[in-house]
């Protein structure tokens, strides 16, 4: 997937993204780290095809795209399994196949038992898992996440970080994870791109020097702290720009 010299200016003149170029090899876990309102969501929307660059190109070679929003955004009138099956339903897959694949996706996020529940009956973390299952049900080659765990408490968030990392290792899909959390970017990704404040420019494009299997102990290690500091310094440079 390639973003080539892409810019996005809104009708009100706001320049959200200005001449950004990023290429992501298939199978990479890339975190986009930047301050709030820097245009990283706009970039993600362009990659998803929900928005178009006013200048430049976005080429996505991936087959299917999955998208996870800042909040779970489930349909409250549907139970969990029907929420997960929605993308297949919109793609007009036969009902028997839909249910099997939705159950499979729910299993991936550890919610096999909760198919008949309604979103209002679930905790915030569980709703986000359902949202993740919905993004995965179409077996995407590219998974886009827009600050998905920002509203969750720290413990739940770390559990979901581990879940996501595990899913990535099992499926081999490309993941693009937008966040404003240094810790989260450092813990999750193999490569981190730090963006400046708006209009977003690349301040740092860094391959993380960390083991591929990660656990809670890593969060307090010296190597982790060093990488986090590097990201922090790049963020600071981006603020002064």
């Amino acid at each position: 997937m390639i973003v080539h010299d892409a810019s996005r200016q809104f009708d009100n003149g706001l320049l959200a993204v200005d001449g950004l170029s990023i290429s992501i090899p298939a199978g990479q876990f890339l975190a986009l780290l930047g301050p709030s309102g820097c245009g990283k969501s706009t970039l993600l929307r362009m990659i998803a095809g929900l928005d178009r660059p006013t200048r430049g190109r976005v080429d996505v070679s991936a087959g299917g795209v999955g998208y996870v929003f800042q909040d779970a955004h489930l349909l409250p009138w549907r139970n969990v399994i029907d929420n997960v099956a929605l993308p297949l339903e919109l793609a007009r897959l036969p009902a028997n196949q839909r249910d099997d694949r939705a159950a499979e996706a729910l299993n991936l996020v550890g919610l096999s038992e909760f198919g008949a529940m309604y979103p209002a009956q679930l905790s915030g973390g569980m709703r986000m898992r359902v949202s993740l299952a919905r993004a995965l049900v179409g077996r995407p080659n590219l998974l886009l996440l827009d600050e998905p765990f920002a509203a969750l408490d720290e413990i739940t968030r770390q559990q979901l970080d581990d879940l996501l990392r595990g899913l990535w290792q099992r499926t081999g899909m490309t993941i693009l994870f937008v966040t404003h959390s240094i810790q989260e970017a450092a813990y999750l990704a193999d490569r981190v791109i730090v963006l400046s404040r708006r209009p977003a420019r690349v301040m740092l494009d860094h391959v993380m020097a960390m083991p591929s299997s990660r656990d809670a102990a890593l969060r307090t290690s010296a190597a982790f702290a060093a990488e986090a500091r590097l990201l922090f310094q790049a963020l600071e440079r981006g603020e002064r720009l």
Partner: protein
Amino acid sequence: MNVRRLAYLAWPPLTVFAGVFAMLEVAVRAGWIASFLVPRPSDAIKSLGANFAEIAGAFMATASAALRGFGLSVAVGVVVAVALSSGGLVRRAFYPYAVFFQTVPIIAVAPLLVIWFGFDQGAVIASAFVASVFPVIANTLSGLMSVDAPLVDLFRLYRARPLAALVKLRLPFALPQIFTGLRVAAGLSVIGAIVGEFITGSGLGGLIQVARQQRKIDKVFATLLVTSLLGVAMFAMINAVARLTLRHWHASERTEGA
């Protein structure tokens, strides 16, 4: 809904009713209020008993017309709202004419409806419809237009056809607001039917007119009581359907329904 819950809901308004009933009874008997202005509540009840067959027949006629007018409002209102929500230009061009239904005084239009539809139920149904269609349009439109942007994005991402987006996202999303419109429309449809009947002389509206002209104030009140019961019944019906439909949306509705 079980008996205990019904009792729980019913006792406060029934207590208020009994209180007002008793106060009026005392006030009229003592001569503080002239009995040609307000009848003794007990006389109104007696009149209801004496004229039961007549009032019940009128009730059925009015209820039937109000329900049909209301049904027409729901069908037409939702379809119009969906059409208006389809584009900014369509909305700007046609919405002002939808507002007409809210601002036009139904009492002024009712005679016209009788000219168009004749002195039978058609005019009464039309009057109930004209009086009640706007809240359905306005609330449905507002619900359709306020769908969460990320959900719209989600449906775009999965390339949902417009019909699928309407049926699977926009209409269900608008349901709570549609029900708000229906609650208002239910009461208005009864008002519209009564006004129509003032002109055609049928149903509860006709009965009120005749009783008023004959100075039978107790019968006027007996009929008014039954008319308000019709409005309350329709309101309760909408509420029951809304609770049943929306029971999964909110935790509170769920536990109460269990």
